[in-house]
């Protein structure tokens, strides 16, 4: 393979790498009152270019580079594009929020770009070395970002909790990897699979390794019972970072888990689908039941984000080869829809927070009279989170639920539907506050232009995915075909 091909295939990563360095450099030269705007601008341009490069690579048909421990395939490119777009939205939303709250704005944007780089390599990884490194890289960047508000004790606390749980989960996952290496003598996903098949793989080893690996992935994706860090970290971290952690970072966890399980451990499919089904039921039930009792909207969304991890997991638990619902394409669609929905919802919370200094339900009271636009957008995001048509969230839920039914996992499907109903209750409660609860507050919520742009993009995307779903579904389905075909 010649150098030019390598550069072409690694284009998204190279763009992100260069952008990260430029952002740090520009920040050194910035003017005093710039408040990180130029750094943010360059970061957004770089992230969008990287997303475009990933999309272009996906369209041009893909070649693998397996020699360097990674594969540039449609599956990876889907996640690269989706997470780069998500992080770009987070960067734009941060401009108004972080200015005045931190002295290190250039570093902040650079860290977000490097996080995109880490995700980009992690979702491509076909080798457990790169899987581990990518996930840990993402985690370490996230610890810093969660604790970025040095004046805010809650942000520091978010960071320390995230860090202690994350470091432990990383060590446990590493132990699982070492077991796989011990059994097969290789850390390449395909080679692991072949060696396991050749040696008539032992069940016990498989189960133990899968459990240990799932601790690591489950931590990233905030699955119950590895979720204890999530509510506090989501609540305490700067709001744009909460949006990042609950979407892009979570997507990376699912992407890596999917590839490792499907490519390296297809022999144990019965074991891990059963395990994932249990985890999925636990995750959505615990998340939704606790979310029901929250009075802070930010914290409610944090628990709801845990519950959504459970829905997303349905896709992997109900994996199959039948069309059109093979489970994994549902996972991709869900993540893509959830990305825009959840970033949008957190951005409304951020706007309210900046306006009234509180993210309690009470702060949302009577919003329809004060800022009808904001209230309508929030309603749309909440409907999408609840999975009501014609929103993006409905398409995602439909595809994962249909996959469980097609696989005859009826208990799982029933639990998921009951959970969706419970979740609708607390989402609609927020709507009730915005529309029907009176308040003395009369000032309309002032929204920074940058935040307004993000809100508009998210609104449009939630509606577009919900109404013109076909191209997105086709994209997701094509992205998973190769991975599934190679696995089974």
């Amino acid at each position, binding site marked *: 393979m010649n150098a030019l091909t390598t550069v072409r295939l690694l284009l998204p990563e190279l763009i992100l790498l260069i952008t990260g360095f430029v952002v740090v450099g520009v920040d050194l030269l910035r003017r005093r009152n710039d408040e990180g705007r130029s750094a943010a601008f360059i970061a957004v341009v770089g992230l969008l270019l990287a997303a475009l490069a990933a999309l272009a690579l996906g369209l041009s048909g893909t070649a693998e580079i397996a020699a360097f421990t990674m594969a540039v395939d449609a599956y990876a490119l889907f996640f690269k594009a989706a997470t780069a777009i998500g992080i770009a939205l987070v960067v734009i939303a941060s401009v108004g929020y972080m200015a005045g709250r931190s002295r290190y704005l250039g570093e902040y944007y650079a860290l977000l770009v490097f996080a995109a780089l880490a995700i980009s390599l992690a979702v491509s990884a076909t080798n457990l070395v790169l899987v581990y490194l990518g996930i840990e890289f993402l985690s370490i960047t996230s610890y810093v970002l969660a604790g970025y508000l040095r004046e805010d004790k809650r942000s520091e606390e*978010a960071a320390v909790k995230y860090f202690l749980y994350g470091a432990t989960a990383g060590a446990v996952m590493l132990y699982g990897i070492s077991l796989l290496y011990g059994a097969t003598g290789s850390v390449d996903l395909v080679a692991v699979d072949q060696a396991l098949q050749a040696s008539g793989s032992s069940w016990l080893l498989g189960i133990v390794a899968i459990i240990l690996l799932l601790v690591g992935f489950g931590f990233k994706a905030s699955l119950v019972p590895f979720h204890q860090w999530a509510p506090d970290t989501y609540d305490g971290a700067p709001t744009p970072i909460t949006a990042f952690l609950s979407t892009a970072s979570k997507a990376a966890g699912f992407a890596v888990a999917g590839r490792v399980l499907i490519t390296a451990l297809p022999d144990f499919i019965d074991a891990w689908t059963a395990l994932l089904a249990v985890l999925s039921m636990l995750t959505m039930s615990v998340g939704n039941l606790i979310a029901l009792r929250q009075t802070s909207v930010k914290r409610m969304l944090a628990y709801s984000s845990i519950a959504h991890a459970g829905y997303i997991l349905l896709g992997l638990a109900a994996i199959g080869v039948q069309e059109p619902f093979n489970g994994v394409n549902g996972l991709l669609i869900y993540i893509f829809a959830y990305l825009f929905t959840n970033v949008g919802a957190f951005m409304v919370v951020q706007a309210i927070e900046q306006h009234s200094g509180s993210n309690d339900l009470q702060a949302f009271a009577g919003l329809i009279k004060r800022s009808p636009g904001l209230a309508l957008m929030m309603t749309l995001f909440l409907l999408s989170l609840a999975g009501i048509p014609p929103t993006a969230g409905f398409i995602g839920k439909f595809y994962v639920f249909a996959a469980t039914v097609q696989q005859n996992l009826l208990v799982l499907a029933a639990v998921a539907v009951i959970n969706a109903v419970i979740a609708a209750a607390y989402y609609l409660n927020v709507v009730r506050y915005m529309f029907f609860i009176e308040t003395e507050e009369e000032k309309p919520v002032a929204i920074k232009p940058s935040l307004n742009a993000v809100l508009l993009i998210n609104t449009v995307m939630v509606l577009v995915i919900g109404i013109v779903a076909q191209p997105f579904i086709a994209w997701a389905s094509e992205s998973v075909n190769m991975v599934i075909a190679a696995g089974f």
Partner: protein
Amino acid sequence: MVPTAYVLVLSAVLFTIGAVGVLVRRNALIIFMCVEMMLNAVNLSLVALSNQWGNLTGQIFVFIVMAVAAVEVAIGLAIVMAIVRHKDTTNVDEINLLKW
């Protein structure tokens, strides 16, 4: 030659001691030391397995783990320092501004 199985058992015991330490201790610094010990236990088993299989993959993995551990320590200690400045404590039970 030391049989690989012995090294692996030692590594498992060290890992477990570290894990128990994470669960019983309430001081953020000590918990963190225990995590480092767990990482070291895994490294030991990776090196032993690398020797057993006669390839260098395990050793490369250990090298990468060491890089990650070094960064993790730098960041982790920085976070602990930041907390101490605010709260004067490293006890994780007292870090409870956010309710469960």
